């Protein structure tokens, strides 16, 4: 069953808002830079949302009670609801679900409070530690801010979280558990502790001498991902409901597939077996075949392992060489928000018939034989996939089509 996307909201390193974010993507403008908050960490490169001022957006008192991960989500939901022409003051909130993905939850708060705990002991800890840090609070606060009183939850499948959220939200609509779903994902900037953890896994690019070129999916010289922050929101409705209220349908979520590698805590299956299951499940769900796919927004993190395993899987299943793009060349890897932000980019791709370039791709890895454009291509996209794979072996794939 197809579900309509009637609103989009984006807060990404490319900019605040759908227009600024999509401009950065279609122009292939990288965002990675040296991050002074990471001084002393083995990796000091990140992609941050430029000029995000929560005090100005929400008022300082309201902003104080939200971790950055929630602030980014609330800002993106605001834009998505406006885009959808929905007003939370008048809607039937009991029929509105919130399903958001996050990898880490409110880690800025956790780190601040742990430092206080270490320095001054338990009695110095803020009572807002848990309400700001717990991973479910991203959805909880959105439900409060927007009077969304239907089911609300956070999906945590690491770097697949945003995709999982959209897939689960679509299921809720199909099951008639709600009439409107606010779906997507959010991730706040990584703290020195989290960055150090990823660095110790050797997952991050260390291109400190040229940070803008650090996130280079599928490139021969790629050396890891760049961690970023952001939020992406899709407003989903059943097509009949969207049509009944004369909403603008920007795209359709036509299929969802999920699987697990059931193999290793961090390494992908070398031939992408689990990923393939999710891809084929999404296509079956959409009533489509691999040959129908014209565009794939790859997981494409720019780690050696991911890009190789993903490309082997894509080459095997899509011998007709559809366009493949990794928008992470621009945004870096937004972790739990990545799948949501990339689903939004994929909706824009099918709506406008544009395959964006993969930024920083100079020389395609000689072991990778994919059709990856380095400048934007204007051509209709009748069916697209958006892939996300997370540590733990979580695989999630969405099939997205124009209305």
């Amino acid at each position, binding site marked *: 069953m197809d579900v309509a996307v009637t609103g989009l909201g984006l807060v990404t390193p490319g900019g605040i808002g759908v227009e600024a974010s999509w401009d950065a993507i279609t122009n292939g403008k990288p965002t990675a830079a040296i991050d002074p908050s990471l001084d002393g960490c083995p990796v000091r490169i990140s992609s941050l949302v430029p000029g995000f001022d929560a005090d100005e957006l929400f008022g300082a*008192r309201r902003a*104080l009670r939200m971790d950055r991960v929630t602030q980014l989500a609330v800002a993106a939901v605001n834009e998505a609801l406006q885009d959808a022409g929905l007003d939370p003051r008048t809607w039937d909130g009991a029929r509105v679900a919130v399903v958001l993905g996050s990898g880490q939850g409110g880690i800025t708060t956790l780190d601040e409070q742990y430092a206080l705990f270490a320095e001054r002991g338990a009695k110095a800890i803020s009572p807002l530690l848990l309400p700001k840090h717990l991973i479910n609070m991203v959805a909880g606060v959105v439900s409060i801010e927007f009077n969304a009183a239907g089911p609300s939850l956070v999906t945590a499948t690491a770097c697949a979280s945003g995709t999982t959220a959209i897939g689960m939200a679509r299921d809720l609509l199909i099951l008639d558990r709600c009439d409107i779903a606010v779906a997507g994902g959010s991730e706040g900037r990584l703290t020195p502790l989290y960055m150090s953890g990823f660095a110790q896994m050797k997952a991050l690019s260390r291109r400190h001498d040229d940070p803008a070129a650090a996130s280079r999916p599928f490139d021969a010289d790629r050396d890891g991902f760049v961690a970023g922050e952001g939020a992406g929101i899709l407003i989903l409705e059943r097509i009949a409901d969207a049509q009944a209220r004369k909403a603008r349908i920007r795209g359709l979520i036509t299929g969802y597939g999920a699987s697990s590698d059931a193999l290793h805590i961090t390494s992908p299956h070398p031939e992408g077996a689990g990923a393939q299951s999710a891809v084929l499940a999404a296509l079956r769900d959409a009533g489509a075949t691999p040959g129908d796919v014209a565009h794939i927004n790859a997981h494409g993190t720019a780690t050696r392992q991911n890009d190789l395993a993903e490309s082997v899987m894509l080459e095997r299943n899509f011998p007709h060489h559809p366009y493949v793009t990794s928008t992470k060349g621009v945004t870096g890897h937004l972790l739990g928000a990545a799948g949501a932000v990339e689903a939004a980019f994929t909706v824009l791709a099918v709506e406008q018939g544009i395959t964006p370039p993969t930024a920083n791709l100079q020389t395609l890895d000689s072991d990778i034989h994919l059709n990856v454009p380095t400048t934007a291509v204007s051509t209709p996209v009748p069916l697209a996939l958006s892939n996300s794979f997370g540590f733990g072996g979580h695989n999630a794939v969405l099939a997205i089509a124009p209305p």
Partner: protein
Amino acid sequence: MYEELKQVLVTNLKVDREVIRPTATLEDIELDSLAIVELSLYLESELGISISSEEIFGRTSLGDLAGLLEQQSGNV
């Protein structure tokens, strides 16, 4: 002590300066039970005054609370 209290409310709890008045209740300035615990922590860290959230909760207005803070700081 009222000015010091006001300073903590504005700087640390980001309460809008305009709503802070000696006659305002904690409810008037929208401090819930979590915010009152925060206030007690900031009174300790910023003013060195040890006062529990339960004691703050019992005050009828900000002016009343400032009076209690005056007493407490006098006791130090």
